[in-house]
């Protein structure tokens, strides 16, 4: 196992967890739809850090973790494209992208 310039694995994991929490907080607390989408992006990238770090540190890890990370990037790009398109439609139809005001599906 080769540490990256003396940085242990747990530091990467802590960074990933911290970043995930930031993203989650943004997704849950912000009322702007675009900010929520950005929060989701941050969460996805926090996961990416974990994947790459494990791929580097774990024995027999190989390149699979990095391949997963690339997948996640690709899916995130698609998700952002669809999500932003929806935000644009909502903004056109309603003149707002405040998430609290889009609650037609209330039971």
């Amino acid at each position, binding site marked *: 196992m080769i540490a990256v310039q003396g940085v242990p694995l747990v530091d990467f994991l802590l960074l990933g967890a911290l970043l995930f929490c930031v993203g*989650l907080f943004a*997704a*849950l607390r912000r009322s702007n739809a675009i900010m*929520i989408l950005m929060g989701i992006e941050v969460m996805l990238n926090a996961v990416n850090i974990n994947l790459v770090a494990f791929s580097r540190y774990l024995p027999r890890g190989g390149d699979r973790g990095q391949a997963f990370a690339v997948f996640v990037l690709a899916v995130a790009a698609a998700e952002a494209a669809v999500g932003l398109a929806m935000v644009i439609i909502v903004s056109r139809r309603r003149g707002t992208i405040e*998430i*609290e005001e889009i*609650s*037609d599906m*209330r*039971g």
Partner: protein
Amino acid sequence: MLNTPPCVGSCSEFPRLPRAGRRGADASTVCAPAAAPLGAEKAVTCLLSLGWLVPLLALLGYVGHVFLGQRAKQWSALFGIVALALGFALSVGMLAQTIGGASIDVSVPWLSMGGINVPMGFSIGPLQAVMLTMVTFVSCFIEIYSMGYMKGDIRYNRFFANVTLFVAGMLTAVVANNFILFFAAWEIMGLCSYLLIGHWFEDPANGRAATKAFLVTRIGDVGLLLGIWWCFTLTHTFQFAALPGDLAALHLPAATLNAIALLIFLGAVGKSAQVPLQIWLPDAMAGPTPISALIHAATMVAAGVYLVARTYPIFQMAPSALFWVGLVGAVSAFIPATIACVQTDIKKVLAYSTISQLGYMMLGLGVGAMEAGIFHLLTHAFFKALLFLAAGSVIHAAGTQNMHEMGGLWKKQRWTAATFIIGSLALAAIPPMSGFFSKDAILAAAYVSPDPVFYWLGTVAAGLTAYYMTRVVLMTFFGSPRSEHVYEHAHESPAVMVVPLVVLAVPAAALGLAAGFLRHLLAPGYIKPDVGLIEFVPLLFAIAGFLWAYALYTAPLARRAALLRSPLIAAPYTLFKQLWFFDHAGSVVTYVLGLGPSFVIGAFDRYVVDGLVNACGSLCLWLGRMCRRLSVGNAQAYMLTIAVAVVIGLVALQFQAMGG
């Protein structure tokens, strides 16, 4: 009470044919020409093997009515008439063959599953040939008559279609060699009687009469169905030819045999309108008069008597079943005869006389004289069809069925009156009319039976028959006209109605000549019991009945009214007028037996079955209302739920890992 049939050979009209197609393996033909030369055997087989064609022709006539009848206008009646005429020609040919002793029983495999083989087929013997000839002849002339009677009816074609289907059902029942086909045909008759009794359904009373006929006969049908089912579970066969032998081979206890025979008899009681299920027949007068003729002569009610004759070996095996057949017959001969004496509707008198005459047939079967019962069935078919058609002619002309408005019609309707009187003489069993010979044969057999009460009930009923028929003839055709309007309006019916009357009058008068021949054909070994001068006792009663009626109904009205005031006459008069309270009793039975359980079952259905179903629905509604609150419509709330759930899941996993 054990009833020993006085005849020895009356079983021999059911020769134990080899069980053709019993295993459903192949279609086989059994032909037993008694003394036919070798070359004739083939011809005999050929004609009898066409037996299935007779009902099929009638069915084709029905199909013609259904698909082409509307276009053919008033000529559509010819579909049925031609089909039945062809069937009659074929039947006569077959009758000629069966005189030579030929018979046939053909089966083809039909239903085969799990070791149960039910073949389908027909059989023609002397009994079947005689019945086919009678049914096709009578119904053919009824249809010809109907062309005149039903002229201009709004459902003309539908009427003829139903009549033809009705006859097809009867013919199928006659030729069927197994219970399945027989029961199917039996039910077709039930359906057609419903449709035809309710032909003029614009009047709700007619619809009710049709429903009553259908439901009351259904009580009998349930019994018949149970009997058939019981036979099948015991012997695994529906074949008429094989059933008696198979049942005998099982050595069943007497009670079982009695029960089977009486269940089958219950079907006959319903269909043949015997006491206590006779209440539907008088109401069936709601149908057009030709239908009354058809139901009362050729089809429906004859089917019940035929059923008993067809399964006669089963009745002979059961120790006391024949006693009950005789008892029901004797009671049914007597009670309706008394009711017929006080009816004022000409059709109602004939309806009650039909029940009475059917009672004679059952009485004949019950005392072991099967051939006498069938002989009376034949003669009755001719003279009762004649009487109904003649009555129809009167109604057609007079525009009323109430005899109190008729009188003196002899001058206006000579042909109708003459044929009606011939029919009445035959019904009253006056020699040399056909009815005398057949009724005489039944009563002679009843006299030598161990239960003399049968004989005396039948003999008194014979006197009553003469009384009420004399009364009808006098009130309708003689005396002075009671209603000027009716008398003015009356006229002789068109030829298409009169000719069938004349044609039917011939066998009604002369069929007695064939008594010896038919006896030889149906029961070769049977010798009519010699009862000496006792033979003429029923005739004496009939003459007494005639004289009494003549004295009463040529006397002034005031004398009859005075007679009614004496309590000795008034009490039975009320009893007869109220139909012996059978309809009331029927209502009570219906209420107690029908409505009581219905109420319990209804409550069970409403509160338990429906309650369970409604509870399921309510539960789902309540759950839905609860779950609805979770949908707050805020995307972030959903996300929070997911996040919290994931955290809880992770913590649980962690605990599990530490604990495990």
